């Protein structure tokens, strides 16, 4: 498109009143403008992506020079690696628990605080505020909340005469604890997206409903939710991609335990590569993770296209 436009416009430009920018012959400067980014992009993103695949075909150690080409043997090993499957399963469980609850919480909060009033703006700021903290701050706060001896919940339990639970070391409660921590940390982004979508629904739709004396429930199901359908899909996809990459919460709160029940895929990649120094094997796991992410992104692109046509 660009070349035709340019060449087509050039001869005309001398006679007609075309916009000045069409007449300019300094298009080559475009390359100068994009060069800095393109260089960084190729060196630090495109090249590493291919190099990552290359590393995954090797028995490659983090320190030293030992590396041996072994083809797809790492991928074959993955197939028989029970810890890999367990970590993948833990990650899927975490995503399956977090994504629906986060989306629902964000939607309920958005419905409750989407007015353009001062009170609602303050409430939005509160719920969004916890997402500006770093993962190590958030995990520290929630370790303090959930700790079996000095946690705030433990103090409350004791005051009520109940036996406190050490949530992060309990095989049932460890995963839900990570989910609650993540909800507190991450609800801000979906909340902001839902609020923005709700504020864009045309007033006329509601005015029509008002004339029809539609009930609150009917308005919600017939007008509000259908109007934000695209945002719901967007939020779901963004959440799946984001939470599949869970790392800091299990690393810092449960260390993957108890009995590897909260070890996530990224945590296993980190442990394999930077604790056991097997970066060839770790890279093959990273490629699997990338493939899963890609499939999810493709689904979003596909759904987006469906929506538009």
């Amino acid at each position: 498109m660009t070349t035709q436009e340019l060449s087509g416009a050039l001869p005309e430009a001398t006679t007609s009143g075309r916009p000045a920018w069409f007449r300019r012959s300094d298009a080559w400067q475009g390359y100068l403008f994009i060069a800095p980014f393109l260089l960084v992009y190729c060196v630090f993103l495109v090249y590493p992506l291919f190099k990552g695949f290359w590393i995954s075909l090797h028995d490659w150690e983090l320190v030293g020079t030992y590396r041996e080409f072994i083809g797809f043997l790492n991928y074959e090993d993955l197939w028989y690696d029970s810890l890999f499957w367990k970590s993948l399963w833990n990650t899927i469980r975490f995503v399956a628990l977090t994504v629906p609850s986060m989306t629902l919480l964000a939607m309920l909060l958005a419905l409750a605080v989407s007015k353009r009033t001062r009170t609602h703006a303050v409430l939005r700021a509160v719920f969004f505020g916890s997402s500006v903290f770093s993962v190590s701050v958030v995990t520290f706060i929630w370790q303090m909340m959930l700790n079996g001896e000095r946690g705030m919940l433990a103090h409350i339990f004791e005051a009520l005469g109940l036996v406190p639970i050490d949530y992060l070391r309990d095989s049932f409660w460890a995963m839900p604890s990570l989910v609650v921590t993540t909800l507190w940390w991450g609800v801000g982004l979906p909340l902001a997206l839902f609020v923005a979508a709700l504020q864009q629904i045309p007033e006329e739709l509601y005015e029509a409903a008002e004339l029809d004396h539609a009930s609150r429930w009917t308005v919600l199901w017939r007008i509000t939710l259908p109007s934000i359908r695209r945002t719901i899909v967007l939020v779901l996809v963004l959440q799946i991609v984001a939470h599949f990459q869970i790392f800091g919460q299990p690393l810092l709160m449960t260390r993957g335990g108890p009995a590897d029940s909260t070890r996530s895929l990224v945590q296993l990649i980190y442990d394999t590569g930077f604790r056991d120094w097997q970066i060839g094997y770790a890279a093959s796991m990273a490629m699997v993770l990338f493939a899963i992410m890609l499939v999810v992104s493709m689904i979003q692109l596909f759904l987006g296209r469906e929506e538009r046509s």
Partner: protein
Amino acid sequence: MNGFNRAIRVQNPWIDRLILGATILLAILWVIPALWIVSLSFRPNFLLMRSTAGVLPIPFTTENYELILRLSRVPGWFFNSAMTALLMTTMVLVVSSLAGYAFARINFPGRRILFIFVLTGLMVPEQAVFIPLHTMFADLGLHNTYVALATPRVAVPIGVFLMTQFFRAVPREIEEAAELDNASRFTIFWKIMLPLAIPALTTLGLFTFLHAWNDFLWPLVSATDDDSYTVTVGLASIQSNYAQTEGLGMVMASAVLASLPVFILYLIFQRYIVSGVSMGSSR
């Protein structure tokens, strides 16, 4: 006023009040965990090591803060985070605004295909490239430097995408007068377009700064020497054995200090940050 709430207000005002009350209650519960840590960080360490019961900082002391400022590595980590974040933010703003302007306004051959090539990078997660990036920086001997901490993020194309969107929306007429004067491309970019882009650059800069400050995985593998930790990695390293070594009060004070810059930025630029979220995601 929002339409959803408006339509239903007519019917049942008390339900609205009930919802508002419940939401305010939840908001109070929401801030309690963070406020509790802030409060306890002003309690003497020896009392905290015995018990964390109660919510008020009684007796009140600032000794935890004095200790970490004088004796710990926290101030150094804080400085590392600040340098990394400033370096990363500067680089992202420069390369994104230049590339964004070119993609939006200069008609060079191959523009479309290059833009698609660049946007594809949005689908690559950090976890897919952090291992090869680690080997690359190791080969260059650059680990434990600000350059290593700041550079990889500059390659993420979200900034280019945002700036392209922004420059596309600027009316052509604004440039045309300058074009007729035969001003150079760079002059037009520098003198006319960039000043217009200050709001977009602010949003992008804020997000980059927050990301740099809170980044965890990359600094964790790149900065392995404990003097080169960022404050996020440093806090992670001391919280795992807080009870035995540093003292609970000092870890709490460190967590509060580590959050202070992002929290202040959030208080000042809240509007930019909340609206920027929907801008960046609605692609």
